[in-house]
């Protein structure tokens, strides 16, 4: 009875759910929830009916559609799976009725209703098509398309677009794909006079590109698609032109190798758009060239410098060929800057897009770009109009990555002094911002131990630093770039291997200037505070023994600042405080890692360890995930530096460790905590035993949870290994729980057939975790009388190794770990496992392959395995 009433009153409830009055709204939400819980089929049916009913108010229809959509999909993987199952098990008659409502809505006069229905249909298709259900969907959408009214054609095309976005191409058969593409491309054609229909069609085509593999291989079909899309870039309607260029850019990355014939025409239309069209269109036209650059950079990187042509996709050098026309086109955009664009984080304009593209072009073609850009720079850099000076400087900064140092260093040597003067004296902030950024690029790409001729010498070092430190007092956006430049200046000395750094004489001043920058009232603008701490971190990372005392002095200063933020916890600017706490913990982490890396320097900062630890623990009181993460990372570094003495912090730290392991929501925090458990294991060794019950329980829960982000699971397995290695045979009591998890994960990860690159990468990281767990367990048990407990697992582990080997898709890291496990198994189980080992393929072919690997870490592990096996079978 209640349900019936609900169904009758659903319109009112949906309207109430959007009421201004909070009480009414709350009551309505409660009603909806009850309805859904009591009778889901009826609930969904009512919603679909509401959406389909043209007699109902727009607001209730829209919300009905939205709730329906949200009942079919969720962001969280585990809920998504749950919803899919729920829909699939729904009564087929109800589903058929709901789907009929949805399809009917596509003909509604209400744009909102049509559009919402389009999205819901796609969600249902996303569930049903992979299960071979709703086979008539595509057919019924496409029947009589040309005869339909424009409104319905638009909605149908939009639906097709959403479907293509939702489902993967392999669940739609080629016949349907052909029909979809035919309908969509017809809609894009200039013969379609309704702009809304044409726009929906081109947007659908964008989503359908992934389905068009076969059609793009057919010359005639491809020619037709390309012609239609290019024509659409000339439409009088801006939205269509923009969508057409967007589609072209997408084609350029999906079908790069099929573009050669069309490049001439595409250049003409993009050049015209960049020059004359309105900005939203021009931006997409530039994006076409940026994505061509992306493609060619990837391909050339794959070539690895030697042009053996092994790469799957050949490079067509489109950028190189277009260079003489492309570069002037891009340079022209640089002069179209907006005032104050550097102060507004959200800005994206044609000058920025053009400059970014110019940088990509430089990376694609290298030296060839230099002579094309230099005249522009020389002509404009001293002009009275700030736009010309800024454009010239930006152009110079853009080409600093890509061309060879031989080509650039002489230019930089000439320009450096000019830039330093400009940074001090140019009246325009925008010019100064770009100048500081350009200096940073010079240091990033042309300064460092790998370069033969240094651009920074004893003669100019002091001047450079003086100017940068002075600039840190400039307006926030300029100061931020100066910090960035200093970051790369310091980084360049990182691998110099010098006991004395050229920065030493200025170290104190640099640190002080950076700290001053962090203290500025306006340090929150333009990311200045963050940039200053980042530069400070890099200065610490690259410091040498000479400046150790100054780095040590930094510790109490940063601690004091962290202390102050903790005292100010109740101030309103809470988010800022948390951000600052994160930065300060990050800075301490870098300092701990630096000073803790060698015995003599470690001694100096250990005096602060107790205080530091209590500060970190207080940071956990805040609610910011970033701050937690940074504090956790810092504690890990501290544990590593402290070693066994870290035990004294454990009673207090433990609850936060457990909290971190329970943080499913901010999975980054959870992942980092898992890493810290490893640090603590190595620091404490068997002193961690008292905490292991709790830690293991938590880790096992994490593994069983479908709420936790999957990326955390491989490190959890590795962490099992860390624990086992630390506590040795004490791991015995966890074997019963840990090994079934390892075993089932191993089974899952043994095969990757049909998976995409992401999945293969994930699978390999999972395998690595599993193997590291086994390694740690074997090594932990070595020499113990309980070794025999591991014997029953040996066959399945060897089988896992054999199947990994058979699969032939391990990366070097997994290969190294896998062959190491073979050695660990042989080493720990010895002659008992001898016959088993000799039966395994891994001990022969796989080992042999690893012994002649190109990767020295793989070889090293293989040699270890060979040794261990030879001992195990020689007894």
């Amino acid at each position: 009875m209640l349900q019936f009433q609900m169904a009758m009153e659903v319109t009112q409830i949906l309207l109430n759910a959007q009421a201004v009055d909070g009480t009414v709204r709350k009551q309505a939400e409660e009603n909806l929830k009850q309805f859904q819980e009591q009778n889901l089929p009826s609930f969904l049916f009512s919603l679909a009916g509401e959406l389909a009913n043209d007699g109902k108010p727009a607001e209730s229809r829209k919300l009905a559609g939205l709730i329906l959509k949200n009942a079919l999909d969720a962001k969280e993987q585990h809920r998504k799976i749950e919803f899919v199952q729920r829909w699939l098990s729904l009564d087929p008659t109800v589903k058929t009725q709901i789907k009929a409502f949805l399809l009917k809505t596509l003909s509604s006069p209400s744009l909102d209703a049509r559009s919402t229905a389009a999205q819901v249909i796609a969600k249902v298709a996303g569930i049903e098509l992979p299960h071979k259900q709703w086979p008539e969907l595509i057919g019924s959408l496409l029947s009589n398309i040309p005869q339909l009214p424009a409104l319905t054609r638009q909605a149908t095309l939009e639906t097709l677009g959403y479907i293509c976005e939702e489902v993967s191409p392999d669940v739609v058969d080629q016949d349907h794909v052909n029909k979809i593409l035919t309908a969509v491309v017809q809609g894009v054609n200039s013969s379609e006079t309704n702009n809304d229909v044409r726009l929906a069609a081109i947007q659908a085509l964008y989503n359908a590109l992934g389905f068009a593999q076969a059609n793009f291989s057919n010359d005639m079909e491809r020619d037709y698609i390309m012609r239609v899309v290019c024509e659409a870039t000339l439409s009088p309607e801006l939205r269509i032109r923009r969508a057409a260029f967007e589609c072209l850019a997408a084609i350029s990355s999906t079908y790069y190798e099929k573009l050669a014939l069309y490049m001439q025409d595409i250049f003409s239309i993009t050049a015209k758009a960049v020059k004359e069209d309105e900005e939203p269109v021009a931006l997409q036209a530039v994006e076409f060239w940026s994505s061509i650059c992306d493609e060619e950079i990837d391909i050339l990187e794959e070539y690895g410098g030697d042009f053996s042509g092994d790469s799957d996709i050949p490079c067509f050098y489109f950028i190189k060929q277009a260079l003489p026309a492309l570069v002037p086109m891009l340079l022209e955009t640089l002069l179209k800057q907006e005032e104050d664009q550097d102060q507004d984080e959200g800005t994206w304009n044609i000058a920025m897009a053009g400059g970014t593209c110019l940088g990509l072009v430089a990376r694609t073609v290298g030296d060839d770009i230099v002579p094309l850009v230099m005249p522009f720079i020389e002509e404009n850099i001293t002009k009275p109009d700030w736009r010309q000076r800024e454009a010239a400087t930006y152009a110079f900064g853009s080409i600093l990555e890509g061309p060879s140092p031989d080509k650039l260093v002489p230019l930089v040597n000439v320009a450096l002094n000019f830039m330093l003067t400009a940074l001090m004296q140019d009246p325009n902030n925008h010019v100064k911002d770009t100048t500081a950024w350009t200096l940073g690029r010079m240091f990033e790409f042309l300064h460092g131990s790998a370069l033969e001729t240094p651009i920074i010498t004893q003669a100019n070092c002091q001047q450079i630093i003086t100017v940068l430190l002075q600039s840190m007092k400039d307006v926030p956006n300029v100061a931020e770039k100066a910090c960035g430049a200093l970051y790369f200046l310091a980084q360049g000395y990182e691998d110099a291997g010098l006991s004395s750094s050229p920065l030493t004489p200025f170290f104190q001043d640099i640190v002080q200037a950076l700290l001053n920058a962090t203290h500025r009232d306006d340090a929150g603008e333009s990311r200045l505070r963050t940039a200053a701490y980042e530069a400070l971190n890099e200065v610490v990372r690259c410091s040498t023994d000479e400046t150790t005392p100054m780095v040590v002095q930094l510790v109490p200063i940063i601690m004091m600042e962290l202390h102050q933020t903790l005292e100010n916890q109740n101030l309103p600017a809470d988010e800022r405080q948390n951000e600052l706490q994160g930065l300060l913990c990050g800075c301490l982490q870098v300092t701990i890692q630096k000073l803790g890396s060698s015995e003599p320097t470690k001694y100096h900062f250990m005096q602060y360890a107790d205080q530091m630890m209590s500060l970190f623990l207080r940071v956990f009181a805040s609610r910011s995930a970033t701050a937690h993460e940074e504090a956790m990372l810092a504690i890990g570094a501290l544990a590593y530096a402290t070693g066994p003495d870290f035990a004294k912090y454990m009673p207090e730290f433990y609850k936060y460790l457990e909290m971190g392991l329970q943080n499913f929501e901010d999975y980054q925090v959870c992942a980092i905590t898992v890493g810290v458990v490893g640090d603590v294991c190595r620091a404490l060794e068997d002193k961690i035993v008292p905490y292991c019950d709790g830690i293991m329980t938590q880790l096992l829960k994490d593994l069983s949870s479908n709420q936790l982000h999957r990326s955390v699971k491989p490190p959890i397995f590795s962490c099992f290994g860390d624990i086992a290695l630390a506590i040795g045979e004490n791991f015995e009591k966890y074997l019963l729980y840990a090994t079934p998890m390892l075993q089932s994960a191993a089974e899952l990860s043994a095969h990757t057939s049909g998976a995409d690159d992401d999945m293969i990468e994930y699978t390999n990281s999972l395998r690595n975790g599993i193997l590291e767990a086994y390694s740690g367990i074997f090594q932990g048990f070595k020499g113990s009388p309980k070794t025999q407990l591991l014997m029953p697992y040996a066959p399945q582990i060897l089988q896992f190794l054999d199947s990994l080997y058979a699969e032939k898709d391990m990366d070097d890291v997994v290969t190294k770990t896998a062959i190491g496990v073979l050695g660990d198994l042989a080493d720990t189980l010895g002659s008992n496992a001898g016959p088993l080992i000799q039966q395994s393929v891994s001990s022969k072919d796989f080992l042999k392959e690893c012994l002649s690997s190109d990767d020295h870490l793989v070889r090293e592990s293989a040699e270890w395995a060979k040794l261990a096996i030879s001992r195990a079978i020689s007894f």
Partner: protein
Amino acid sequence: MAPHDIRRPFKRPVISDQQKRRELSLLRQAQNRRDAQHQARCLASTAFSLASQTLEAPISESELEVEALPESHKGHEPESEQEPSPKDFDVVGASKLKGAEARKWFAKQLMHPEWMIDIPDGLSQDWYVFARPSGKRCFIVSFNGTTISRLRNGSILHRFPSALPNGSRKKDVSGSAQSYSILDCIFHELDQTYYVIDMVCWRGYSLYDCTAEFRFFWLDSKLAESGACDAPSHYHKYRFSLVPVYNCDHNGLYAAYTEAAPYVKDGLLFYNKHSHYQTGITPLALVWKDENCSQYVIDTDNEGQVPSQQQVVLELQEDGRLTTSDDPPTVFGCLDGSFIERSGLKSGCLLRFAVGEGGVVFVDGKLENADLHYLGKANRARASADSFSKVMFQYSVRHSPLRIDDLLASVDSAVDPGAKPCDIEMDG
């Protein structure tokens, strides 16, 4: 459908410093895990276990003393803080030992061959042969940027930089600086070269429990790779060199015996292919010499002269018995208490005897009687008594030596393994 966002990063690095911190931490953790794993793997199940704590400078300079005698240090406190337990020293811990303690420990680590008094079965199948370089037998440890060679009595011969793994302060590309390598070598004065005759540990991996076959294979493939065979340089003070090892068939034996070597030969060494590296004296490694392949076939006395009678060095036991250095020792005779008292001898003394006219008499393969005449205390540099096989080899050299032709004949006769008599139970 809204247009897609095409904003690209502008004037900002693609990777934030926070991301960099995260990645550096992960990198450090992975490295630490690798180190821990590596350390665990290096924990060899032999007397050589690696200390779990990391160590700093290996050995202080004060230890650079030459050839002091163990006795002169008796009663001295070991300078090391570490209480030396008698067994299961790890090599890293041992390298912290100083002076006498260090020598005592290292003296026990070499494998010593028995002297060949009869020809083992299966010589041609189961054995290697190589010409032993003449020179000082050394135990070489490279670790933490230094290489140290020690003589059989444990005293340091050289401390030097070498191209062995972690043998000099140069950056090593792979492996932990804490991993050590141990070689069994002979230092050949003439060309100032260490001839490597065995590999005991390599990059922290123990080869103790590996067969000679494997050890030689490993030695062969790893040593040259390390650059240790290169000519001396600033970071590599002495050259290391491999010794040509042959299968002990006719050709191999003949080659080892006759072929010119870059070093002065001192006899032939025979290694059983299946034997592990065993510290102390082992019958699975044998030494044999004659005048053609060694300058010193018959032992010389203190003046370097061949004495008219064979001399043997035996250890005096508490009960007066005179024993060889074997384990278990062979008893060659007994001194009576009054003589011991008169001569002021203590148990543990190494004493020199001449073998008289009566010679050495065997019954059923067991020593029945030896005609020994007391000469005096042995040279103070001697570390231990003679082994039984040495006494017997010296005895046979003087009376009925085992000749190269005998050896060659034995490997020839074994060409056809089917010809070898075997014990088969006949059921009739």
